[in-house]
């Protein structure tokens, strides 16, 4: 199974994963500034207050990274589970609950290099060819429970508390063509947990400039999270048959994840059309990792801004085949949270989305396609072309509420 992604996920505790659902990803947005009644979303806890139907969401994604650096190139593919969410109305249209499991960061990479080393000196000098492979996996995941309250028809707030679980494995393998040298390996396993919480607010203003238009504005604040982490060195011997732990190398420390503030505005000129722009700021310069402080200097504050639109032609009661679907398009620019050799590792991403509605229910399938460019070839850094496809199944009405009239 494809399991290696961006080479930049080597740093820190992995590359940040946006909280957007597939529909929002199709527009290069997070989904803070608008609410879709039939599609679950984690972006803004305030949206959960307007939950009418029981909603379930889950999906998978695949991304391919074509990386170049100098004269070298590599292709990596990463298949992963996307977020899962269950969103339930407590007081229909007033108070709703959300339970979810979603990735926050992902470390997924595989690099390999070959070199020739001259070991020893004099008569003991030995020229050794070394193949060194580095594989990383895991990341930070969030199990979250939250509540949203629609205070009025125009204003909602929400809060979510979460437990974040860190589980990362960074493996190194050395191989030698010379038979007198055995393959060697070790792995750095990092695990830990921390508590997080975030607030969200959402305001909607109907009939702003024209009849049946809608202006939405959203804001979320995600507070810093301190992860109590442990790092230990492990390895395998006897051809991988025995795993050993180097107790002397086990260390404890805190990892402090940065605060994030997101905001956005959406405008629905009609029920069929929406345009939106959203952005966020993440104070990665405050990222701290007591287990590996040498990396902290690489992290800088991150800004991301996206603009997108969606069009639902079926709302207009058009009767053509192509009018049955949801269409989304957008683009985003991400300044990145890394600055290496004086260069920001930014990402420019273009997105397309397609939504397929169920003819018998309000459930749907969302598909997003992405193409983007990350990083730079300057200073011997890596530039990645990213292709991504993500599929999410949005279940509505399950178990809890079925409209009396179909």
């Amino acid at each position, binding site marked *: *199974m*494809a399991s*290696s992604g961006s*080479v*930049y996920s*080597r*740093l820190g505790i992995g590359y940040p994963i946006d909280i957007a659902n597939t529909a929002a990803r199709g527009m290069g947005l997070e989904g803070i500034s608008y609410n879709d009644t039939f599609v679950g979303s984690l972006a803004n806890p305030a949206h959960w207050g307007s939950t009418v139907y029981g909603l379930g969401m889950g999906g998978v994604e*695949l991304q*391919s990274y074509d*990386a*170049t*650096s100098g004269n*070298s190139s*590599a*292709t*990596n*593919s990463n*298949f992963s589970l996307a977020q899962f969410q269950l969103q339930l109305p407590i007081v229909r249209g007033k108070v709703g609950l959300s339970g979810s499991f979603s990735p926050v960061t992902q470390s997924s990479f*595989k*690099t*390999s*290099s070959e070199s020739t*080393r001259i*070991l*020893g000196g004099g*008569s*003991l000098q030995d020229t050794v060819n*070394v193949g*060194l*492979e*580095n594989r990383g996996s895991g990341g930070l995941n969030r199990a979250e429970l939250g509540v949203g309250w629609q205070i009025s028809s125009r204003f909602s707030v929400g809060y979510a508390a979460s437990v974040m679980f860190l589980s990362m494995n960074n493996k*190194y393998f*050395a191989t*030698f063509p010379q038979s007198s040298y*055995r393959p*060697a*390996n*070790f792995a*750095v396993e990092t695990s830990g947990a921390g508590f997080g919480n975030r607030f969200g607010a959402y305001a909607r203003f109907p009939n702003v400039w024209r009849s049946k238009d809608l202006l939405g504005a959203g804001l979320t604040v995600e507070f810093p999270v301190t992860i109590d982490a442990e*790092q230990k060195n*492990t*390895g395998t*011997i006897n051809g991988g048959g025995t795993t*050993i732990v*180097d107790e002397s*190398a086990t260390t404890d420390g805190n990892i402090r994840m940065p605060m994030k503030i997101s905001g956005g505005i959406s405008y629905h000129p009609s029920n069929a059309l929406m345009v939106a722009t959203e952005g966020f700021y993440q104070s990665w310069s405050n990222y701290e990792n007591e*287990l*590996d402080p*040498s*990396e902290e200097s*690489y992290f800088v504050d991150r800004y991301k801004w996206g603009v997108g639109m969606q069009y639902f032609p079926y709302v207009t009661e058009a009767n053509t*085949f192509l009018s049955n679907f949801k269409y989304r398009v957008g683009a985003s620019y991400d300044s990145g949270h890394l600055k290496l050799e004086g260069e920001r590792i930014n990402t420019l991403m273009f997105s397309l989305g397609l939504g*397929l*509605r*169920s*003819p018998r229910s309000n459930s749907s*399938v969302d598909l997003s396609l992405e193409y983007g460019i990350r990083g730079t070839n300057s200073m011997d850094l*890596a530039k990645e072309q990213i*292709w991504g*496809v993500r599929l999410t199944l949005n279940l509505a009405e399950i178990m809890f509420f079925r409209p009396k009239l179909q």
Partner: protein
Amino acid sequence: MYSSFRNLSSFCLVLFVGSILVLSSCENPGSVGSGITKPKAEISNDTLYIQNMSAEQTPSYSGQLQYLSAGQFDDPLFGSLKATGFVKPALPSSGDTLTNDLKMLMRVRLDKSQEYGDTLASQSFSIYEISEIWRDKAIKVNDQLSYDENAKVGSFTVEQEDSIDVEISSDWVQKYTQYADTTSSDSLYQLDLHGLAIVPDNSGKIIPIDRNNTDFIIQNAEADTFAVNMLQGAYTLQRGSSSSIPANSTPLHSTYESILTFSELGLDGLNLQASGISKAELILYENTAALGQGLAANVSRANESRTYLQLADPKKIPDNIDPGIPLNTPGAGVNPLLKNPGIYSAVDGTYRIDITTLVTSIVRSNPPQGIEYFITLPNDGVIKSSLIYTDSEQAPASMRPKIIITSLKDTGN
């Protein structure tokens, strides 16, 4: 409508699965990204010098080995050596015929490739009857067995041949045949007839006698000729003192008259991880200059291409490191951690012992308690010697005993 949805859903599913297959199959990881930050793993080469290496005298068992040595040679470096062989033939089986006029020949098989001394010299031996009871299982190389020099039962001279038949005197053969005829022959034979001593008469060379292929031929004038095996075989060695050993080196004898010992490898502080160890080698330098000094062109010492690093309780040597002890017999349940083989490199005159498994084990679970390290030459009955540079300050720094460990190290923290 429903059909359209179903068709497009199917199309999207096929598209998605197809994308997964295509993108997954395109994986081609390379070096891109490996240099974006400081490497967190690197191949490291650590050199440790063995401290406080010393010599230990613990003469080995010399019986029941593949060879027994006999001969005499004055080694300009290691002193004078006189090796006396002891043999005892087995009794014939009950079906074998023994006539009154039979002759017994000792068919001696020699390993010419492992001669010690003047290869062109003639080495003469006299064979005497041993006058005391002995067991080859218990005899050590520095033991002494008495033999009756007034009861010579044969003699022979070795020049360039690799096999020689030696006729045993009829007096001794007659004694021998008596035991074959008695009903309790085995026990009486064990107690009363003690075998033959092969005693060198001059100083020429020491020759390994192949114990397993040396046998006794019994020739009946009017009946079948047959052979009996060697029932017991051993040798003892008298070594004169030597003043020629350089102060910076220590002899290493296959007879364990001198072996090397040290108490620890000194791995502390190396920051090694067991799984990261790729190669660990103990290197001993032979003092080739001193070994070659004063040797005439036709004089040779038996070469030994192997050595061992053994871990053992110092209070129990040589029993716990001797090949005559079943524990240390290859294939008889030897713990590979306790006996690490090494090979000799003639290119640079080093013995190199692969101790990767040993070091991995020690790093993983600390060194075993109550043991010390012993370096030995294989003891198969052939007398072999080497001269090893110690950690003495008089030894060249580059030639002191050392351990070189190649490992993959975590440099991230």
